[in-house]
C-alpha cells in the first residue's frame, strides 16, 4: 500500500506546494523530450551496457549485442535498427519496443546507438537496392498495389531512367500505372526463399487513372486491342518498352515503342512518347488524367503520339 500514499503526497504537492524537490519540478513541466541517450539508459543499457559494449547488468543466456563492434542483427541503417527495436528479435531476449516507445523516441535512441560504432559505414546502396546509374535500368518482378485497394500484379515492370524518374507498368497489357520520382527499387525478392513483390522506392508523382487504367487501344470499330510485351531496351538515354497491338484473333495492328521523360524544362509535366509502326489504323483512348498532342485516330504507317501527364508536387 505504500506506493499509493506516495502518489497521494505527490498529487498534493502538485496542487499546492511551493517548495518542490528538483525531480518533481521537472515532472511538472510540459512532458520533456527525452534524448536518445536518456532513452538508451532507461531501456537498453541494462542489457547492452551503458557504453554499448553488450555488458549490461542483466545476465542473459545469449549475450546482448555489443554495438561497439559495429554489428547489427538486421542491418545498420537507421531504418533497420529502428525496425529491430520496434519488433524485437524473436527467439532472443531482445523485446519489441513498439508499445513502449513512440516512433520518434525509437529514432532518437537508434541514432544514439549508431554512435557507439566507431566507424559506422553506411551501407548505401544497400545490398538489395537496384540503383539506376548512367544507363536506364529495367526491373521485372511482382509489383505490389500502387495504391491501397488495388491489385498486386504478378507480372510487373519498372523502367528507371538516370534522371531519377521511374515508370511502373503492369505487363499483362503493358499499361503505365504510375510515375515515380526518387530511388529506383528494392529487390525484396532477393531475401528468404524469394517470390515476394518488389518494393518500388520512388514517390508516386503520377497515378494514371487512379493506378488502374483501362486499355488504351481499339480497332477502328471500337474492338479493344491487346498490348503484348515485345521487349525492353536500355541501350539509349531513356528506357524503351516495346509492344505489339493485337486483336482477339492475334492479328497485329501495330508495334509501339514507348519512352517516357519529363518535358524539357518543366518537370511537372511528363510525356509518354509512342513511336508507332501501324500496319492497320487504330484508335488511342488516353487516360482521363492525361492529354495527347495529336488525333486519337492513328492511320497505318509510322507516327508518333505524345501523351502528357501532369505530375503532382513531389515534395
Amino acid at each position, binding site marked *: 500500500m505504500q506506493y499509493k500514499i506516495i502518489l497521494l503526497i505527490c498529487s498534493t504537492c502538485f496542487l499546492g506546494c511551493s517548495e518542490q524537490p528538483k525531480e518533481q519540478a521537472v515532472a511538472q513541466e510540459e512532458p520533456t523530450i527525452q534524448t536518445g541517450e536518456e532513452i538508451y539508459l532507461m531501456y537498453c543499457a541494462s542489457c547492452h551496457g551503458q557504453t554499448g559494449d553488450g555488458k549490461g547488468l542483466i545476465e542473459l*543466456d545469449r549475450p546482448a549485442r555489443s554495438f561497439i563492434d559495429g554489428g547489427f542483427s538486421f542491418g545498420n541503417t537507421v531504418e533497420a535498427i529502428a525496425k529491430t527495436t520496434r519488433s524485437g528479435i524473436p*527467439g532472443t531476449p531482445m523485446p519489441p519496443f513498439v508499445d513502449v516507445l513512440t516512433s520518434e523516441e525509437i529514432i532518437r535512441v537508434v541514432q544514439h546507438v549508431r554512435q557507439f560504432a566507431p566507424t559506422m559505414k553506411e551501407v548505401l546502396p544497400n545490398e538489395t537496392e537496384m540503383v539506376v546509374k548512367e544507363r536506364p535500368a529495367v526491373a521485372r518482378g*511482382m509489383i505490389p498495389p500502387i495504391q491501397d485497394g488495388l491489385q498486386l500484379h*504478378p507480372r510487373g515492370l519498372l523502367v528507371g531512367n538516370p534522371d531519377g524518374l521511374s515508370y511502373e507498368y503492369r505487363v499483362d497489357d503493358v499499361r503505365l500505372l504510375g510515375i515515380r520520382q526518387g530511388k529506383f527499387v528494392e529487390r525484396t*525478392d532477393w*531475401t528468404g*526463399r*524469394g517470390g515476394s513483390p518488389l518494393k518500388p522506392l520512388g514517390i508516386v508523382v503520377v497515378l494514371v487513372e487512379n493506378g488502374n487504367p483501362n486499355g488504351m487501344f481499339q480497332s477502328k470499330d471500337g474492338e479493344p486491342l491487346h498490348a503484348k510485351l515485345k521487349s525492353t531496351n536500355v541501350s539509349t538515354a531513356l528506357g524503351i518498352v516495346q509492344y505489339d497491338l493485337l486483336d482477339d484473333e492475334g492479328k497485329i495492328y501495330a508495334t509501339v515503342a514507348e519512352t517516357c521523360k519529363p518535358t524539357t524544362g518543366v518537370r511537372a509535366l511528363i510525356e509518354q512518347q509512342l513511336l508507332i509502326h501501324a500496319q492497320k489504323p487504330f484508335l488511342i483512348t488516353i487516360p482521363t488524367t492525361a492529354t495527347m498532342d495529336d488525333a486519337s485516330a492513328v492511320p497505318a504507317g509510322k507516327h508518333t503520339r505524345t501523351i502528357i501527364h501532369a505530375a503532382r508536387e513531389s515534395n
Partner: protein
Amino acid sequence: MLLSMITCIALGSPFTIDYLSPPEGEVLEVGGMGFMSDGDMVVSTRRGQVWRIHNPSANNPKDAVFTLICEGLHEGMGLAVVDDEIFVAQRCELSKLVDLDGDKIIDEIQTVTQDWGMSGNYHEFGFGLPVDEDGNMYVSLNVGFWNPHWWHGKSRAPYRGWVLKVTPTGKVEPVAGGFRSPAGMGLLEDGTVLVTDNQGDWMPVCPVYAVKEGAFYGHPASLRWYEDQPDVEPSDTQPPTVKREHPVLWLPYQWSRSTGNIILDTTDGPFRGQYMIAELTNGQILRASFETIDGILQGACWLAHKRVGSAYHIEYGSDGTLYAGITNRGWGGLAPGSGIARVIYNGDPPLEMTNGHLLTDGFVITFSKPLTSTPTVTGEKYDYNWWWEYGSPIQNLETLQVNSVTLSDDGRSAHVSIDNLEAGTCVMLKIENATSHDGSALRHNEMSYTINKMPGGDLAYVAKQVAPPIERGEHVEGWMYLTWADAFDVWTNDGVIACNAELDIDNPTKFVISDGPNALVARSGNSMKTKFVVDAGTVKLKYMLAKNAAAEIQLPNGGVVALTDDDQNGYLGSGIWHELEVKFDDNPRVISSVEVNSVRVASDVAVNNRVATPLPIEIRGIKGEVAFGDVRLQHLPTELTREWKQLRYDENDFVATGVSWQIADAGDLIVDGSGSITIPVQPFSAVGFDTKIYGNGTATIAFGNLVVDVATHGKNKTGGITGHPINANLVGKNEWCTIEVIEDSQTSVFLNGIKIITTDTDRSIVGSEIVISVQDATLHLRRVFVK
C-alpha cells in the same frame, strides 16, 4: 593466400573440387548455366542477374573474370545458349537477351513468351531450360503454397505444375502435368525431356521423370488443366483416379532431398554416357544410368561427388570440368550456399560401378576396372506411400535374399543372383570387398535401382496408393515445438546460442556464425535441458556437426543417443543438416527406434542405465561445434475421460460481443473475430480440453480467474496461464492440442500430457463462467472436460 589454398579441397582421388571467385560483395545464386562458343560461361541467378564468366576453366579459379551483363530479371532459374544467343527462363516469361552493340552487355530483353499463369504466390518458380534438337525449349512450373495447409500445393493459374514446350516461334504447348516443384530439367540422349521433382505432397521422395506428352505425374493440383478433366481444385487428401506415369528413378532420400537438374555426360571422363544429377540440400552430385525393360524406362543411381556445396544446376564445360551452380537461399543446404564449384577430373579413373542391369533373377553390375575377387553383396528392397503427406517414409522394408555373386572372367562384371526381387520396389545394394588390381577400393559402394517392371512381368507402382492419412489439424497429434519463437523458454540453457550457422569451408571444424534464428549452436560443454520431464514419446530434431564434432541426446529413460561425425548409417557428413527421430519408452525401458534422415539406424535397444525418475531431455555438445534446431517432442496425452465429466453448456446462455460463434457438426465450438463470449457453467476445480487457433491474432480462455493463453502470435503463447506466460510457440497454428489445468495444493498445467507449469497460487478456477476472448483469430474448442 591461406584462403585459396584451403578452398581447394583435394579428395585425394580422381576429382578435385574448387570454387570460382565472384567479384567481392557479389553473391551468385545460380539458377541457369550455359556456354558461349568462345568458352565463356554465362549464368543466370535467382537475383535476376546474368553474369558472363571469361576463362572459367583457368588453372587458378581466381583468374576467371566475371562481368555482369544483365540485371533486373524476375529470377533466372534456367538459361540456354543457342548459337551464341542467350535465353533465360524468368519466373514471368521466357526471354532472349540481346547485345545490340557487341560489347557483350545486354541491351535488349525480348519476350519469347509469357503464356503461362502466375497467381502471385511466392512458390510459383519457373525453371528451365533444356533445348531439343528442333530448337524447342522446355520450362517447368511450380505449384503454389497457401496457408494454412501449405503442404497441399495448389495450381491456381494455368499450367502451374506442368512442363511446357516453347517452340522456336514462341508458341507454348503444354506437355504434361502432375508435378509439384519440378526444379530440375534435362534431356535424355534421345531428346526426351527429363524432369526432377522435389519430395513433398504426393511425392514420397525426389523422382526423375522422362516426360511423355499428356501423361500425369502424380501431383493432383494441376489435373485441372488437362482437357479431359474438370477445371476444379482437386481434393486435398483423396488421391485422384487418373492413371499415373512412373518415374524412371526414385532417388533415395538420404542421397537427395532437393533435386536440381540432370545432364548427360558427354565428356571423355569415366562417366561418359551416364547422367549426372544436382542435389542441393546434401550438396552433392548423383549419377544415374537408365535401361529399357520391355519398353519401360527405369534405372540405377549412385553417389558421384560428395561435399560440392548446394548444387542446383550442373553443366559440363568443354574441357570436361563439371561446373555446379550453387544456391540455397531460404532452402538450406551444404555450404557453400552460393557461387560456382568446379569438379575437375584428374584423369585417374576411379573404381566405380558403371552400370546396373536388371535380370529376372538379379542384377549384372559392371565395374570401371576389373575386380581382384568376387565382392560381397547385400541389399534391401522397399516402397513408398503415395499420399498427401509431406514425403513418405520407406515402407515394406525387406532384406534381399542374395543367392550368389559370380564375377566374370575379366573381373569387370558381377552377376548377383537374388530370389525376391519384385516390381514396384526400390532396391538398395551394398557391395563390399571390391578392389581393383591397382589397389583402389570401390569409391561408392551403394547402388539404388527403381524397379517399375521386372523383365516379362507386370508394371507396379513403387509409390503405392494408400488410405489417406487423417488430415493434419483435425485431431491432437501431440507434437510440441520446443524451440519455436523463444527458443530457450522451456529449456535450462547452458551456453547454447541462437544464430545462423553454416560450415566454414576454410576451416570445417567450425561454423560461420551469423545473426539469425535458424540454429542453436553448442560447443563442447554447452547443453540445453527441458524444464519438464516425460516418460515416453518421440523426439525429433535437426542437427549439423562441424568436422570431428560430437553431441549427445539424453533421453528421459536414461538412454543416450550419440551423434558423431562418422560416415555411417544415414549420416551424410559435416556441414549437412540431418533429421533425427528417436522413439523412447519407459516400460519396457528401450530406445524403440533411431532414424537419421529416415534411415533406421537402430531399433529396440534396451536401456540398462537405470534412472529412478525420468530425466529431462538434454542436448549436449561433447566435442567441437554442433548445431541443432527445430526440436519437437510428441507425447500423446492420456484420454481425458478417466474421472472427468464432459462440460455441458447451453448455447442459449452464450453472451457474445464482437465475435461470431458456431457449434460445428463434430461439436466443436468455433469462435471467430475480435471480442469475447461468456458461457455460464457449473463450478469445477479442474478442466481439460482440446483447442486450436488459426489466424494472426491471439486468444485466451478464462475459467474464473484462471486465464489460459491460446496463441501462436504475440508474447503469450499457447499453454501459459495468468502470471506464468509461455514464450515458446509449443503448438503450431491450426494444430490441435490438449490443455489440462488441475488445482490441488498447486496449480499444474499440462500441455499434450506434459506438465509445463507448476505454481503455488491460490485457487483461481473459481466462478461459474468461461470467457473466451479472441483478437483477430479463430479459436476452436472441443471436448471440454471438468472435475
